[in-house]
């Protein structure tokens, strides 16, 4: 008697298509599909994927309620012993879908597991659902599938799960004891030597971080204020002259919109690789609303739209990088006398 598993994957891994097919509604398939084969093989008959649920990433994001209803309905009928989703690697909407569908299935009392890159937005749910840490692209499937299969089997069997570093899942905010190979005093000396030599080290207990950005006081008089537009939606001049990456951006761009009443498809485009670019390219104002801001200027709602904007691609970009970019260009905004910023994201 082997464990019955249901696997959730997206349109890309089901070979339906890429971004252009991200709108597909959930489908129920028999047996394994795509990466499910690797999971099945790893279980060697002790567990098997009886059904695969395929759902488009955009569909899940835009019709979450309907998607969940449909999927949970199937799961209740199938009554699997386990539900596994992904791995999503660095695909943000896929990671979000995996995490959230797992949370919903978990509420039915069925054990779940998913996997993704630590910086995937879906990883924000790591305290609510167990997430195996994977590499940032599908090139990491060869490590991710066996790792997920192994941990899933332990969960199916009800075995004791060790600490996150031992088992390969993202820390769930729960402290779990484990025995190290070396005594603490040696680990402390080794850690200090690394720190003294400016080498990377990993603390065994991250201090709780109280990173709250306190909002600045509201603008008293908008009609006198200079407002700047910024975006992580990747709007750049036609041809992307500064080659901002479509994912994991290494830099940001600063562009002049003085004299532009509205962005045009001839002059501007998006560099972002994480969403369907058709509508942004057809009308870039959808991501960077220059047209609306100019209207506000004319009507006196705002004092003025700043003549420069700052842009980068948020897709798969490290938090540390995002912080770095903003720390730098915030200074330029302040120096230019900007009072407030509207930041658009996708």
């Amino acid at each position: 008697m082997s464990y019955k598993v249901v696997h959730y994957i997206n349109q890309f891994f089901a070979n339906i298509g890429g971004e252009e097919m991200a709108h597909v509604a959930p489908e129920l398939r028999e047996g394994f599909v795509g990466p499910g084969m690797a999971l099945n093989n790893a279980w060697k008959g002790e567990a098997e994927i009886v059904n695969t649920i395929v759902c488009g990433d955009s569909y899940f994001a835009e019709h979450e309620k309907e998607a969940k209803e449909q999927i949970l309905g199937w799961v209740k009928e199938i009554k699997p012993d386990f539900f596994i989703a992904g791995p999503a690697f660095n695909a943000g909407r896929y990671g979000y879908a995996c995490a959230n569908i797992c949370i919903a299935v978990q509420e039915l009392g069925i054990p779940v597991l998913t996997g993704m890159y630590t910086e995937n937005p879906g990883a924000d749910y790591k305290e609510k659902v167990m997430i195996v840490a994977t590499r940032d692209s599908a090139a990491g499937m060869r490590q991710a599938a066996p790792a997920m299969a192994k941990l899933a089997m332990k969960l199916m069997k009800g075995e004791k799960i060790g600490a996150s570093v031992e088992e390969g899942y993202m820390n769930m905010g729960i402290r779990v004891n484990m025995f190290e190979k070396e005594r603490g005093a040696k680990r402390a000396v080794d850690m200090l030597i690394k720190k003294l030599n400016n080498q990377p080290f990993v603390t065994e207990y991250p201090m709780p971080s109280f990173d709250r950005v306190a909002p600045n006081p509201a603008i008293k008089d908008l009609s006198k204020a200079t407002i700047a537009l910024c975006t992580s939606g990747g709007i750049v001049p036609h041809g992307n002259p500064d080659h901002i990456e479509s994912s994991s951006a290494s830099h940001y761009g600063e562009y002049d919109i003085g004299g532009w009443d509205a962005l045009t498809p001839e002059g501007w485009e998006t560099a972002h690789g994480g969403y369907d670019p058709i509508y942004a390219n057809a009308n870039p104002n959808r991501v960077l609303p220059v047209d609306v801001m100019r209207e506000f200027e004319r009507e006196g709602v705002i004092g003025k739209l700043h003549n420069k904007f700052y842009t980068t691609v948020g897709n798969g970009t490290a938090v540390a990088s995002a912080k770095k970019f903003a720390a730098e260009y915030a200074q330029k905004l302040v120096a230019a006398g900007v009072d407030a910023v509207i930041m658009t994201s996708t």
Partner: protein
Amino acid sequence: MKTLELGYFHIKDIVIGSESKIENGVLYVDEAAVKALVLEDENIKDVHFDVARPGESVRITPVKDVIEPRVKVEGPGGIFPGMISKVEAVGSGKTYCLKDMAVVTAGKIVGFQEGLIDMSGPGADYTPFSKTINFCVVCEPADFLLATDPTATLPIENAKKPEYEKAVRMAGLKVAAYLGELARNLTPDETETFSTPNLKEGMEMFPDLPRVVYVAMLQTQGLLHDTYVYGVDAKRTLSTMLWPTEIMDGCIVSGNCVSACDKNPTYIHENNPVVHELFKQHGKTLNFVGVIITNENVYLADKQRSSDWAAKLCELLGVDGAIVTQEGFGNPDTDLIMNTVKIEKKGVKTTIVTDEYAGQDGKSQSLADADQLADAVVTGGNANQVIVLPKMDKLIGMLDYVDVIAGSHAGSLREDGSIEAEIQILTSCNNEMGFGKLSAR
């Protein structure tokens, strides 16, 4: 240069009989002689001895202190200066140690914080003293110390507790010194030498190595929470400095069981693991300058003063890095963070060793205080983890107080003799000098 050579005698067994000697690795103990020694103190009515060996189905509880027998054979001073020996400064010459064994004091409980040692079973993985052959000294308090209220939870009269604590503490040190003395004229199985240059010598010898100091925080919060340095109650001291080898001669002894899991028994002070690990790297990857000791008093002004002093000494020494170890939890978490933040702000990089109280579900904040500057932490694990200890065949001590040891609850001692409690009750299981391998993520 301050140099101490330690000579190790690996003890294979302990036999209680009618003579005291060490022969072929076996320690023979004259029961009558040791009994007379302990009963010199009128606060102790009676004492009996027992031996617990690794792997045996034996439980020792309540445990007060664990001590390694040592004797000073060459050089100034004697073992446990200010307590057993006179106050002359130690840390040089030759000292012999009886390894793989320990003296364990046990007996009627003074407060809530004594612990438990299991020599086998799951508990044995969590206490280092399941690996030593333990010579157990089970003391019984004199009648005049007993609580007059027969319904009292704890048997010792409140006012008399400090006297009894001291009596048992001294009994353990006396026995350890007596046993250590038996090695004086023998030849050790092996030796190990430790040398610390003075500041000037150190900088000349190792101009390119980062200079590191070890900041040892000592528990100093009152009854069962005190530590003694050369016989001085560390509550009443200003932060100061020691040669690392002074600690090896027992100049710091324990009077505390803050919770059994993270109390530093005298044994761990004598075998301070941070001192040993820093010596291993001394002259190679770092220059081990010395030890700063600082206390953990309950008054805010004392905390501020002591942490200011610890940081000041780091600054004065001009070191590059410091390892900071804590003793205890909760209240002293504030001392730990104060020390760390102040030392870091002097430009000295720190790595700290602590343990955690994250709740039985592991979801609570592990430390009572926090700061982003404490970015290099080694942990001795979550002390609130629950464990079930099966019944052991033999008991040394008494089970009467199992339910009230810190980490236990009413009903911890079950009908079948097993114990369900937090690992907090196991002696030195979450040690914050990094003596053990338990950790958490």
